[in-house]
């Protein structure tokens, strides 16, 4: 079958009018030997032979806004409605950037894009009445502040008599992609990576069942990467973390069972399915060949979130169809955990009703469609296998190119990823403007919006409430203990010691997030953004 190069996937991979065994021959895929069964190396078809028969994917719902009490209320609501992904903590921007809620830059942003967390007292209110053992899982997008979120939750276990082994803390703790795409970085990149890998090493030793890193392609995808680039860049970053971890004496072979890779699922249905299959294969090969991990230790957790990017503010109910298709693709791709966006997310953070619809989408796919009854149902499809092979090839080529640039960190510093993302984002916008790419309700089938859709309302009282919590917290501290603990943080940063014990001590002494991050900045300096002529 000759490829028609004018019709391509989102990643610019050629699509033939139809696919058959000649397509696979041309790509060098041997049908008889190319598809080892699920549960065997290189795990293209899944990590477990039984797939979802022995348990569905986790249904995580990302949530958080306002003060700790507001977020706590939403968590309890979602858990009562059958969310199985535990408590997934969306953080507001000041928290993600390590600023206390009363910092001048935090003004007007407190509790807006997520929950505001300033100190350990907020964590106690955040988890109030939530049985962590029963929830099973706590996730947070803590990246630049990874060590602090880790210390908060571990200190909570210590002081509230919760055994860390009864639930799983998962922090994103992937700062590299912040410099590429997401923008919550505040330290120089080398320092941020050092802090992140300190958490991984500490967790490996002290909380071995937790997931101290979720290497994320999702944000790079949102910023412009194609699905194939998302896969390639993420594995490049994962490799960088694992190399640094090896230098700290922790081998991927020992660490691997608690490694997670996180992507987002876009609208090109079969390409997304193929992406998840290709990623399992490529990372398994890297694990075996580069890090010497025995095959039985290779499985990692594959986490997928539906993408917010294709969701439209126009005709928002259409987003239910988009979310369903994305959720379906990530399930057919065999992901272990999924997060599903809500149909009103192009307007504001989700209302309860919209969040429940998204949870129900997972439940309908799981219980009503029969998709979970067999593993990798699209395996062996000429098209899906061809795409899997092609994406695998892109990953290999990109990893080689990034290797030539000196690895992921060097590539970030050279602006390689950033330029790739910016270029594709621009081309994508152009395709939308010219109608080459159709988005229903945006540049086709446009409708005069007669209905004003309800949107989540932000309560201005949250900021004041959070500021009063912060003031009360500061008053209850022992100043001498606090000063000594913060000096300990600075000392640990300046040495090669693992920083986590010092952060734990600072949290216990009542240090706020702003104070701990200030100590980091004092030692490492600050990430600086420059004006640039475009």
């Amino acid at each position, binding site marked *: 079958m000759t490829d028609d190069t004018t019709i391509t996937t989102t990643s610019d991979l050629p699509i033939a009018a139809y696919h058959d065994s000649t397509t696979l021959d041309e790509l060098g895929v041997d049908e008889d030997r190319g598809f080892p069964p699920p549960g065997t190396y290189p795990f293209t078809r899944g990590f477990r032979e039984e797939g979802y028969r022995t348990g569905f994917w986790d249904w995580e719902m990302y949530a958080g806004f306002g003060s700790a009490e507001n977020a706590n209320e939403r968590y309890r609501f979602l858990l009562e409605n059958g969310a199985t992904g535990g408590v997934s903590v969306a953080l507001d*921007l*000041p928290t*993600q*950037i390590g*600023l206390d809620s009363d910092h001048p*830059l*935090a*003004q*007007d*942003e407190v509790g*807006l*894009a997520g929950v505001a967390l300033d100190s350990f007292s907020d964590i106690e209110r955040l988890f109030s009445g939530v049985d962590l053992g029963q929830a099973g899982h706590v996730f947070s997008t803590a990246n630049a502040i990874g060590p602090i979120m880790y210390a908060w939750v571990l200190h909570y276990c210590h002081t509230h008599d919760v055994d860390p082994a009864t639930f799983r803390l998962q922090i994103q703790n992937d700062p590299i992609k*912040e410099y590429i795409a*997401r*923008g*919550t*970085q505040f330290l120089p990149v080398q320092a941020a990576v050092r802090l992140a890998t300190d958490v991984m090493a500490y967790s490996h030793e002290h909380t071995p069942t937790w997931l101290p890193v979720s290497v994320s392609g999702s944000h790079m995808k*949102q*910023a*412009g990467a194609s699905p194939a680039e998302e896969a390639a860049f993420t594995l490049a970053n994962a490799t960088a973390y694992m190399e640094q971890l090896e230098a700290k004496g922790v081998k991927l072979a020992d660490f691997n069972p608690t490694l997670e890779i996180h992507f987002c699922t876009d609208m090109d249905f079969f390409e997304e399915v193929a992406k998840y299959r290709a990623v399992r294969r490529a990372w398994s090969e890297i694990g075996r060949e580069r890090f010497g991990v025995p095959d039985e230790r290779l499985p990692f957790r594959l986490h997928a979130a539906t993408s917010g990017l294709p969701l*439209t*503010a*126009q005709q928002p109910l259409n987003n239910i169809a988009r979310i369903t298709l994305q959720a379906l693709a990530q399930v057919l791709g065999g992901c272990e955990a999924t997060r599903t966006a809500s149909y009103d997310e*192009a*307007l*504001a953070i989700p209302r309860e009703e919209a969040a429940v619809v998204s949870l129900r989408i997972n439940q309908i796919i799981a219980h009503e469609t029969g998709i979970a009854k067999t593993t990798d149902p699209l395996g062996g499809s000429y098209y899906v296998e061809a795409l899997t092979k092609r994406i695998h090839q892109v990953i290999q080529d990109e990893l080689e190119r990034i290797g030539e640039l000196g690895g992921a960190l060097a590539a970030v510093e050279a602006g390689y990823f950033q330029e790739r*993302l*910016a270029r594709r*984002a*621009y081309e994508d*916008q*152009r395709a*939308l*403007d010219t109608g080459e790419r159709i*988005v229903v309700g*945006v*540049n086709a089938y446009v409708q005069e919006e007669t209905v*004003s859709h309800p*949107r989540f309302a*932000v309560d201005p009282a949250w900021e004041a409430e959070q500021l009063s919590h912060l003031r009360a917290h500061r008053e209850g501290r022992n100043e001498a203990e606090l000063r000594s603990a913060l000096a300990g943080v600075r000392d640990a940063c300046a040495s090669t010691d693992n920083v986590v014990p010092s952060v734990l001590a600072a949290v216990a002494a009542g240090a706020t997030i702003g104070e701990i991050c200030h100590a980091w900045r004092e030692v490492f300096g600050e990430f600086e*953004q*420059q*004006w*640039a*002529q*475009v």
Partner: protein
Amino acid sequence: MAKPGLDGHERGAKVVARGLRDAGMEVIYTGIRQTPESIAAAALQEDLDAICLSILSGAHLSICRRLADAMAEMGIEDIPVVVGGIIPEDDTEELRRLGVRAIFGPGSNLDDIVAAVQEIVGGADA
């Protein structure tokens, strides 16, 4: 082109900046995490014809209020301001009252944005 506030999602800002450049305009991008005051200072220092803001955080009203104050203080309130991002319909009137000349929400066409900025800048010169 500036991104005020703490939100680091700069895809839209970069796309629009490129679009303006490709239409022949000279564009300076401040990068993320600017304050309204630093944006006003940049406008004064660089002698700009227009300020374009990209705001997704929901803090657009207070940001534009502070920017208007800072610009008035520096005597540059005649520099036109254009805002793009997730801006609820209900807030457009208040933004216009604060002197915002054009507002572009999600799904906007880049050519429309470029044409609007060209018209506004042309108007500013006249």
